[in-house]
């Protein structure tokens, strides 16, 4: 796997995305069961298929990340409103699509403070393996709204 073109996402880049005015409808109950699909958080009728990587990312997301990066969690209410500045929703394509896979990887692995962002985002580099972070990024890219477009592949080295 020399070129990582995976989709992805995650975490606290707290660029405020005020104004995107979405009403996410994550359905933790139903979605936690179907691991190879995720309902579009902005449109519960639309179902996003997940490949193996993204499905693994979904599993990790619902263990580690959902508490602060979604407005509905398996436990019901979300911790997102307790965190200042407010973390981006995991499907927030406006904020996250412009970040490269490498930036997301750093944000997840090193935490917010290492990137000059909020220290409330803890580092997961010693908790999750590189592969798990790759899976998470795949999941973040898969559920992004607006959809994530991978950068043109740079091929052939």
């Amino acid at each position, binding site marked *: 796997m020399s070129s990582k073109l995976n989709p992805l996402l995650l975490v606290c880049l707290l660029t405020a995305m005020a104004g995107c005015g979405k009403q996410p409808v994550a359905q933790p109950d139903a979605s936690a069961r179907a691991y*190879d699909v995720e309902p579009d958080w902005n449109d519960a009728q639309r179902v996003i298929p997940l490949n193996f990587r993204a499905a693994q990312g979904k*599993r990790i997301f619902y263990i*580690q990340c959902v508490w602060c990066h979604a407005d509905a969690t398996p436990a019901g*209410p979300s*911790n997102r409103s*307790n*965190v200042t500045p407010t973390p981006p929703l995991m499907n927030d394509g406006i904020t996250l699509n412009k970040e490269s896979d490498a930036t997301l990887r750093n944000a997840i692995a090193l935490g917010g403070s290492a990137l000059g962002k*909020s220290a409330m985002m803890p580092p997961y580099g010693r908790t999750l393996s590189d592969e798990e972070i790759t899976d998470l990024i795949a999941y973040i890219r898969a559920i992004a709204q607006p959809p994530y477009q991978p950068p043109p592949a740079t*091929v*052939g080295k």
Partner: protein
Amino acid sequence: MPAEDMGRVSFRLRYAFAVSSVVFVAVLAISPVKDLHREWKQYKRGYVRFAETRPDTKRLLADVHPGIDQIWLPDMNVVDRCTTCHQAMTQPSLVGASVPQPYRAHPSVPHSVTDWGCVICHRGQGPATEVAEAHETTLAWEQPLLSVKFIQGSCGSCHRGDLPQTPKLNRGRQLLEEFNCAGCHRLEGIERPEMLGPDLTRIGSKTSRAWIYKWLKDPRTITDANGNVVVDGYETEEEPRMPKFNLEEGELRALSAYLSSLSGQPVTSYPFNPRVVAALERSPEAVTQGEVRFRQMFCSTCHSLAVTRAGETKLIGGDIGPELTKVGTKVNRDWLVAWLRDPQAYLPHSKMPRYEWSDEDLFRVTRYITEQLTDSDLLKDVPGLPAVTPEEIQKGRRLFLEKGCASCHRIEGVPSQKDFGPDLSALGAKNVSQLEFSESKIPRTLVAYIQAKITNPSSVNPAARMPQYHLTADDLDAVTIALLAMAGPPASPGMRRLVVQQPAPVFRPAGAFGKVYERYKCYVCHKFNGFGGDLAPDLSYEGSRARRDWLVDFLKSPQTLRPTLVLRMPQFNMTSQEANILADYLSMALQHPSVDLDAEEARSFTPQMAALGKELYEVKYQCQACHTIGYTGGYVGPNLSNAGNWLTPAWTEAWLRNPQALVLGTGEPRRSFTNEEIRALTAYLQTLRQVAKPPAGAASHGAGQ
């Protein structure tokens, strides 16, 4: 023949010979031409053309050669020629749905194609070189390709234990267990529990014939006008464990007559303190107080109640015990009191803890259950049932065995019916020709057969005795996956070596602790050294984590460490003596080998260290994102307001160093604190002490709610 004629004949013969030679050569030529157009060669040429349109042509074509490709793993009986057409299996640049098949690369999964081949997971015919033969059922090959939707079934044929990567398979195995499939079928890796359905030896003392009739007819209570179960609760089952048997009227009457005749010794009513009875018997508040106690004791951790809000009915509560919304219509009051006081006296294998009750609480909760949790409409469709006749009892007893009821339910004096249904431990490897479809119109595949058999058994076998199960589409797929995983013993020695068995630890301590542990059924929710439930924290190392005094207080009156939990530790009303027995054992026996309590207790923390720790907590690491102290902070981790009384310093330090080493899979991320920071944070947490405990059952103040 004249000589001159011979020349002419010879010419004609030569002419015929020439023509036949040409025909012969042409026929011979068909073979190489046909060979040139064989399916796999076309795909190979197609791949070369396809690769030429890609930017990394050179790399894509590096390993291409004109012959058949094959993965040969003699140890595992693998001869897979799939890569002849699926050329680019391992090319990272061809991953993704945008690449046309058969040239798409395999998405990255934990097993590599070259080490495992293809058919071990995907099924199909490995040595075949034609599309249809490789993928579909043919006369000579009955194991067609397995749809990717069910691929986790293949993971399960070697991985007999649960893997985090196979949630559907895990869910399916859990459902097979929950629905007591092991009652009638032998299943690979799923043991027959000691109790499946309840023991019915004395069912007549518990409930009425009318209720039994209704339950046999349709074993659900929370239904809408169409008979659908109308719940979508959290952490609850949507389907009762008792399946629907489609019994006829006469059978319902006979079975209900037989069962209601089984009453054993009549239940003696419990002699409540007359003062309590006098005070509470008429008081309308007693019912409300009973409801409050029901909630405070957290009965809902195991039992759910249907709650309708805004037109939506949800089951709120856990699914360890039965749903209780209308149980007041079912049980008789004397039985209920006896049950609450000592469940194991009625059902020796019940998971229900034996609570400690005061007469007041018992009376109030009983009134709440028998007066509030009722539904006068529940039995309205039950016809008038005349007095039971001996013939009906006889017939009921016969039906009980004919229908296989004794597979799950015990009745004293009735032989048990283990293995009443077919052995399913090798169902996943069955060929289609071994399955019975009768008149059914479903596709002739194993997956379709399994699903039809579960949802409507008589569609594939009109004489089926199997009851009907109603599963959601997701759950049906999960169960199908778990059954596909039961492919019997591995076929080759190489595969046999790969099978990863599921460990089955047991933790049943003896002595005083063992008695209290059994009484309160700690293991139903908590795990001890790998044994027990996973609803509540793993207590294998609780003695290293929690201070003994805190344990005693907590056991007597569980407080809220995690305010958002719906399912919480019940209030057992245990005595001080029992709490001390539990706390002593936890503190002494359940310790983590690497956490040295003595070494750490001796160290004194200075106020300077605590001040530094507070700063680290609040500013540098901002732990308040997830933890609450006082009334501020997040609720992802436990509330730390009382950490000084709760946690041992040794555990805190070890935890900060590496939480996953102490509790596998904990949500707390592992950080890179320095030793000095770890000591400072521990010193700070040790200063957090709540003097007065909040009253039991007080509303929690999780921030942000």
